[in-house]
């Protein structure tokens, strides 16, 4: 099968959905012809679809989301880009209090078919205001769906599902994934939300990992296999809300051990929720504590040695596995 990058996979999803449904339009800062998006995901789309449908905005994150909501509840299907995930903080009221709640508050009269695309994650040395992973904030807000694709295939399939969904979706991308290549079929496909995938089968221990950490977990698994003979299963939830608890729990039941890995800060983060679910629903199958590997509880520092220390790497994953196997 042909291989394309995560970035190109996202762009294909946007393009195909725009061709399929003229209600779909994009808005965000510098997503148009003059820049093509800070990470070039939307490059070329303004040229193809025009500036009305690929709409550059002022630097006004609150209004970007608010405007997208207003469009979504009146018949359009906006895909808003927030240039960096950290900046969702500026639009938090519109995301968490408006987009997530309008349908409910209004007794189901309308839906809010809105996608908010935004890149999270560190690793490119752009410090505390451009490197966070904030998925957990959105997981905590009922009414939102949260997607977190780790491969080009998933990026495309999940983004299509997100755009066709009637619910507001926070679509979490990762800066380091944009250039990553993988197999993506030519034909149309969608990936249903709430379906995890097993990236690697194993019998000794389960690693649940998300976004860029999936790749680090797979590397760690290889090393563990080779050097320690530990046979690791890697589960990638793909969407955090809805979360495919079943696949996670079945894997844990099989292996009896689990490490949960995510790039966001440890406290009250993605790993907390997944751990808590396992502790609530599968504790009897566990032969060891539930380990969490996450970013240290610090802002993301600028200097490479500091940033590398804070963000989980293969070694931390390996150490965590070895502590409980």
């Amino acid at each position: 099968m042909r291989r394309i990058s995560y970035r190109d996979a996202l762009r294909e999803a946007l393009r195909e959905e725009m061709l399929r449904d003229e209600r779909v339009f994009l808005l965000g800062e510098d997503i148009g012809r003059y820049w093509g998006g800070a990470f070039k995901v939307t490059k070329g789309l303004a040229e193809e679809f025009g500036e009305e449908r690929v709409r550059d905005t002022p630097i006004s994150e609150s209004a970007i989301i608010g405007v997208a909501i207003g469009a979504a509840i009146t018949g359009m299907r906006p895909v808003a880009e927030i240039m960096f995930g950290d900046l969702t903080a500026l639009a938090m009221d519109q995301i968490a209090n408006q987009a997530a709640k309008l349908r409910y508050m209004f007794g189901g009269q309308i839906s809010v078919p809105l996608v908010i695309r935004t890149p999270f994650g560190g690793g490119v040395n752009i410090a505390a205001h451009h490197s966070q992973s904030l998925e957990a904030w959105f997981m905590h807000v009922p009414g939102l769906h949260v997607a977190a694709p780790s491969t080009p295939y998933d990026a495309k399939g999940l983004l299509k599902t997100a755009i066709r969904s009637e619910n507001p979706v926070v679509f979490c991308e990762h800066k380091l994934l944009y250039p990553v290549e993988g197999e993506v079929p030519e034909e149309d496909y969608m990936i249903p939300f709430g379906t995890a995938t097993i990236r690697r089968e194993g019998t000794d221990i389960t690693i649940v990992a998300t976004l860029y950490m999936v790749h680090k977990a797979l590397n760690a698994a290889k090393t563990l296999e080779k050097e320690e003979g530990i046979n690791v299963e890697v589960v990638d939830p793909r969407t955090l809300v809805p979360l495919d608890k079943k696949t996670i729990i079945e894997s844990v039941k099989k292996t009896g051990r689990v490490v949960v890995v995510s790039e966001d800060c440890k406290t009250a983060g993605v790993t907390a929720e997944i751990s808590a679910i396992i502790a609530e629903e599968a504790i009897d199958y566990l032969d060891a504590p539930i380990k969490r590997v996450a970013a240290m509880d610090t802002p993301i520092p600028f200097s490479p040695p500091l940033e590398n220390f804070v963000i989980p790497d293969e070694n931390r994953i390996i150490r965590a596995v070895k502590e409980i196997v």
Partner: protein
Amino acid sequence: MTYSKWGSTMIDVSREKLVEMYRKMLEIRYFEEKVFELYGQNLVPGTIHLYAGQEAVAVGVCSALRKEDYITSTHRGHGHCIAKGADLKRVMAEILGRKTGYCKGKGGSMHIADFSIGMLGATAVVGAGLPIATGAALSVKLQKTSQVVACFFGDGASNQGTFHESLNMAAIWKLPILFVCENNLYAMGTSQSRVMLIENIADRAAAYGMVGTTIDGNDVLAVYQTAREAVERARKGEGPTLIECKTYRHKGHSRMDPAKYRPKEEVEEWLKKDPIKRFQDRLFEMNVLTEDEKGEIERAVIAEVEEAVKFALESPYPSPEEALEDVYA
């Protein structure tokens, strides 16, 4: 370009329309008085923010709109709903937390919506409705319908960042929207003069290259006329307008607020400018209304409000498990 102040110069409105406007204002007034009464009887859960005193704004603006046009509303939203044509029964039922309410009891007083009449709902986060209304206007533009949007908000809301961001976006994209600032001089206990140096909020329009105008918000005809012109411009693709309506709420901000922060003379002066009383006098003057007709309308409105109360009080509460519905589509 800014509008001049009309005062209440006479305009081309049919007799029926004038009476209809009058009736709507009465509906709001009696409705709110009833809500206040029910609140006193402990029948209204939570809090309430009454619209009484500001009727000319909602009715003036909504009278310039078509059914398919959109409005967005605030925590002080009963009047906007009624003016746009909502069913009093379902508004009252919502306020009382009943299953038959517009939002099945999930929204309450601060979150009423009726999408079937273009009422896109109320948000209780002050200022949060502005970008949403702006988005509805963008939607209309993209879909090339001829709808317009009227976005209601208060003087206090005009200090929120969303005001700035929304007006700017609406201006640059020439969106068909009326930003209707209901300047009732206070945001809770905070008088306008303590939180902004300018006297007229409409002057902020200039910061966005937008048309802005300040009018007497207790003169329903002035509001109507201004809104009509703004709607016309909007439908022609000439962009948004900021309309500041100076008005006054008769009651406190919410619930039992005695509103002691307002000087007695100020309250008295504004009560004299009661928009309903003024409009009524005007209609008498113009021979549009007779005492008999007035009495008839009042009786009809009172009956309608009573019916709404009866409907609401007889309606069941939602069952607890319904709380789990409508989170996702």
